[in-house]
């Protein structure tokens, strides 16, 4: 076994045990549980009343825009992390490069703020 991979065996054990607990519980329940049904058993729960309204409603598009921007800035953070770890050995040129990179991204953020994306009703 690859010696680098060997140190990760606790993760494998953890994964297997988690699968056993989660999936195993459902499997055991399907064998041991009584199976009965009645007319309204699988109705959506609405505190005992009939369902008044569908939960599927249109919602604001801003959720999508915020999620998209999060993705972009998250990737930017990932790019900054290696530099942050070893900045001492990279020298001054790397600092200038990072400043230019961050400046471009911050310019994008300023543009987005000016577009009033983060202002909700």
């Amino acid at each position: 076994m690859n010696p680098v991979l060997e140190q990760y065996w606790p993760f494998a054990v953890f994964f297997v045990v988690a699968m056993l607990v989660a999936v195993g519980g459902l499997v055991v329940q399907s064998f041991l549980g009584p199976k009965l049904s009645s007319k309204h058993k699988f109705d959506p729960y609405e505190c005992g009343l009939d369902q008044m309204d569908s939960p599927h409603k249109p919602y604001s598009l801003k959720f999508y825009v915020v999620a998209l921007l999060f993705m972009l800035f998250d990737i930017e953070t990932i790019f900054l992390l290696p530099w942050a770890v070893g900045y001492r050995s990279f020298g001054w040129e790397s600092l200038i490069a990072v400043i230019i990179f961050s400046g471009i991204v911050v310019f994008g953020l300023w543009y987005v703020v000016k577009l009033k994306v983060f202002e909700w009703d």
Partner: protein
Amino acid sequence: MIQFQASNFDTVKTRLESLGATNIHHDGASVVAEIPRTKAFDIIKKIKDDPEIGFRFFTDITGADFLKYSVKKPERYAVIYVLLSPSLGVRLELIAYLPENDPSIQSIASLFTGANWAERETYDMYGFEFKGHPNPGRLLTPEGFEGHALRKDYPLKGKGERSSFPVYRATPGHASE
């Protein structure tokens, strides 16, 4: 606690008498007066807007059925309005008698927002029609309940509504849908 003061009673009594209320008396806790049902809305509107006695605080509307009452009353039904004057500290009960063949009266829901549901409850329990009510209908009884429950000729134990529900049944096997 609203402490009743006899000095306020005379102020209220003279004002009510000038508006057309009769039989104004107090029982130590609140002033009770009888008003004719045709003038009920106007009297309540006037005493609500009156700067001196202003009965601005709506408390309740209820009804009464005197079918089996020991004392003979002018009519079988009555609507009772309970109002409060915050400035004087006087609680007022106005009784408006309604005839049996036409138990209807003008609604005061336009004067007091709280009267909206109080009138619906009174309709549900007694069957009085409140003319001009923005949202008439039953309030406390379930859908399909027939009759008006607090009338004296409605049986206390009901007419079988309380035992006519489906019994829980389960069938073996998972539901397919």
